[in-house]
C-alpha cells in the first residue's frame, strides 16, 4: 500500500486528495471548480512569497522574520506604479496594459532585489549563526519597515487598479473563472518552473543544493557560499516582493497590515512544506490555498483557524514538514 503510494508520488498527491474529498463534501461541481481555481491561485501567490524564505533558511540557517516586509513593500510599490500609470491601464490596447503591469511588477522586484541586498549586508550579516539575535534583529527591522510604510503611504487602505485585460472572468458552462486568478496561477507556475530548472539543471543550482545539504563541505571545496547566499537572499526578497505585488492586485484594497497578515500564512506554508526545498514550499502553499478556500466555503466559522489546524495535523504526522531538505 505504502510502496504503491510512494511510486505515484507519495505526499505530492496530498493536494489531489484534499481536492477529491472537498469535491464529495461540496457536491456542486461548478462551485468546486471556482474554489479550486481560487485555492490554486492563492497557493501560487503564497508560494512566491514563501520560496525565498525557505531557501534562505535551508542554505544559511538564517530565518528572516522581516521577510514579510518585502511582501508589503512589493505590494505598495506596485500599487503606486499602477496608480501612476493609470492612463495606460485604462487604454483599450492590451500592449499598454501589459506594459503597465510589467512596469509595476518589475519595479516591485527591483526594489525587492535592492532591499534584499541592503537587508543581508547591514542587518543579517553581523548575526549569522545566532538564532536568538537573528529573530530579534529581523523583528526589529520588520517594525522599522512597517512604520516607514505607514509614514510614506499613510494608514488608510489604498485601492489597487487592475489592468483592463485581467478584469472579468471566463465563463465555461456554469463555471466562471476569474482571469486574474488564472494569471496568478500561470505566473506562479512559470516562476516555479524557472526555479526548478535553475536548481536542478544548472551549475549554480547544484552549488545551492549542495550548500543546503552540507555547507561546510562545499566551502571546504573552495566555493564562496556566502556570496551565493547574498544572491539567493536577493532573489528570495525579489520573489517576495513579486508575490506581494500580485497579492495587492488580487485583493485590490491593501493596508499596511498586509505584511503581518501574510507573514503568518507564509510561516505556516514553510513549516508544512519543510524547510529548504522549493518543492515542499509549493506543496505547502497549494495545500494552504486549497484548504483555506474549501473550509471558507464549507465551514466559514472555521476558516480563520483552518491553516493553523492544518499545520498541527501535518506536524503531528511529519514533525519536519512534508518534504524537508534539511534535517
Amino acid at each position, binding site marked *: 500500500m505504502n510502496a504503491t503510494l510512494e511510486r505515484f508520488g507519495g505526499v505530492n498527491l496530498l493536494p489531489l486528495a484534499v481536492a477529491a474529498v472537498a469535491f464529495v463534501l461540496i457536491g456542486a461541481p461548478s462551485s468546486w471548480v471556482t474554489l479550486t481555481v481560487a485555492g490554486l491561485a492563492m497557493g501560487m501567490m503564497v508560494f512566491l512569497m514563501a520560496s525565498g524564505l525557505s531557501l534562505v*533558511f535551508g542554505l544559511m540557517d538564517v*530565518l528572516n*522574520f522581516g521577510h514579510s516586509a518585502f511582501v508589503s513593500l512589493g505590494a505598495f510599490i506596485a500599487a503606486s506604479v499602477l496608480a501612476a500609470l493609470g492612463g495606460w491601464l485604462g487604454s483599450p490596447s492590451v500592449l499598454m496594459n501589459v506594459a503597465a503591469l510589467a512596469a509595476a511588477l518589475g519595479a516591485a522586484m527591483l526594489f525587492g532585489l535592492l532591499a534584499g541586498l541592503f537587508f543581508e549586508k547591514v*542587518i543579517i550579516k*553581523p*548575526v549569522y549563526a545566532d*538564532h*536568538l*539575535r537573528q*529573530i*530579534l*534583529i529581523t*523583528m*526589529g*527591522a520588520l*517594525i*522599522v519597515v512597517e*512604520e*516607514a510604510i*505607514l*509614514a*510614506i503611504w499613510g494608514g488608510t487602505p489604498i485601492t489597487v487598479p487592475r489592468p483592463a485585460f485581467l478584469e472579468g472572468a471566463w465563463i465555461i458552462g456554469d463555471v466562471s473563472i476569474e482571469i486574474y486568478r488564472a494569471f496568478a496561477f500561470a505566473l506562479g507556475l512559470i516562476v516555479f518552473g524557472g526555479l526548478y530548472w535553475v536548481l536542478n539543471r544548472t551549475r549554480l543550482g547544484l552549488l545551492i543544493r549542495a550548500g543546503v545539504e552540507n555547507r561546510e563541505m562545499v566551502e571546504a571545496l573552495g566555493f564562496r557560499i556566502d556570496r551565493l547566499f547574498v544572491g539567493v537572499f536577493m532573489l528570495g526578497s525579489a520573489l517576495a516582493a513579486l508575490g506581494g505585488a500580485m497579492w495587492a492586485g488580487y485583493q485590490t484594497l491593501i493596508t499596511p497590515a498586509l505584511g*503581518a497578515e501574510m*507573514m*503568518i500564512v507564509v*510561516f*505556516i506554508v*514553510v*513549516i508544512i512544506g519543510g524547510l529548504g526545498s522549493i518543492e515542499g514550499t509549493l506543496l505547502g502553499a497549494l495545500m494552504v490555498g486549497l484548504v483555506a478556500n474549501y473550509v471558507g466555503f464549507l465551514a466559514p*466559522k472555521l476558516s*480563520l*483557524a483552518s*491553516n*493553523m489546524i492544518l*499545520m*498541527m495535523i501535518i*506536524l*503531528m504526522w511529519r*514533525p*519536519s514538514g512534508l518534504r524537508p531538505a534539511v534535517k
Partner: protein
Amino acid sequence: MKQSYGTLGVKLAVLAIWAALLFGPFLFQDVRSIQVAARICIFIVLVASYDLLIGYTGIVSFAHTMFFGFGAYGAAILLKQMGPGWTPVLLGAGAGAALSLVIAAGIGLLSLRVKAIFFAMITLAAASVALVLASQLSHLTGGEDGITYRAPDLFKPATKLLTDGDGKVLKLWGVSLNGKVAAYYFVFLSCAALFWLMLRLVGSPLGTVLKAIRENEARAEAIGYRVVAYRTFVFCISAVIASLAGTVYAVWLKYTGPETALSFDIMIDILLMVVIGGMGTMFGPVIGAVLLVLAQYYLRDLMGAASEAVSAIPLLPELLNPDRWLFWLGILFILLVYFFPKGIAGTAMLKGSRT
C-alpha cells in the same frame, strides 16, 4: 560573593523604582501618572515572566500576549456576566490561568523538541489565531469593541477606605483614601507578589538548571537534566504568570479588548522592554518596562513638538509624527541588539566585575 558596583547600582535602581511605585499615589497625584504607574507595575510582571523564557532558557515565544489576553478576557467575561464582585475575578483568574497552562503545555510538548526557530513560528501562528478568535466570537468577547464592565465595589472612586470624625474620606498627605487608591494598591501588591515569586524561582536550584540549559543545552542534557521537560515547565510557569498579570490589568482598566490585551503591538512592546532592559536578569525587565512605558506616555508629546518644528522639511515631519514613535524605538532596538546584547541592566552589571 562580592558584588560588582555595577550590580549594586542596578539593584539600587530597581529598589528605587519599586519604592517609587509603592508611594506612587502620594508622589504623583494626577490621574495620568497613576495610570502610568499601574501600567508600569503590570508590565514589569509581564516582561519579567517573558524574560524567564527568553533570558533564562533562550526560547523565543510570540504567544506571550495570548496568555496575557486569556487572563484578561477570563476576568472580563465573568465580571460582565456575573456583575462586579470578587468571585468572578477569582474564577476568571483561575480559568485564564488554567487555559494558559493547558495550551502552553500543548504547544511546549508539541514544538519545543524541534528547533528554536520552529517554536517561534508556531507561537506566532497560535497568537494570531487567538487574536482572530477574540474578534470573531463577538457574543462572548465583544469583538473589536471589547468589553466594558465594573470592577469590584471596593475599587469605586466613591468608596471610603478610612473616614475621619465627620464621616468624610480621610486624607493622607493631601490624597483622599478612596477606592482609586485601593485599586492601585491591588495592582501594586499583586504585581510585587508575582515579581517576588519569580525572583525566588530564579534563585532556586531550578533557576540554576535553567541557566545551565541556556549556556549549553547539550551539556545540560548530558549531565542528566531533561531539557524538554524543563523548557516546557518554564513555558507553562511564564504563561500562567502572564495570564495572572492579564487578570490584574483587566480589573484595573475596567475594559478589555483586542487592542489592550491581545494585539501584536503588546508583544512588540514586551520584546522591546526585555531587550532594552536586559535579558537574563530579573532586574532588566524592571528597568526596560519603566523606560518604555514612560516613553510611550511622554515621548509622544516630545515628538509632536519636534514634528511641528521640522514641518518645512519633506518626510521628516511624517517620521517624527507621534504615532511613529515605534519607528525610532525599532532602530534603537536593532542598535541595542548589535552593540549591547545584554541590555542596560546586563551591561551595567558587568561594570566593575573584572577586578
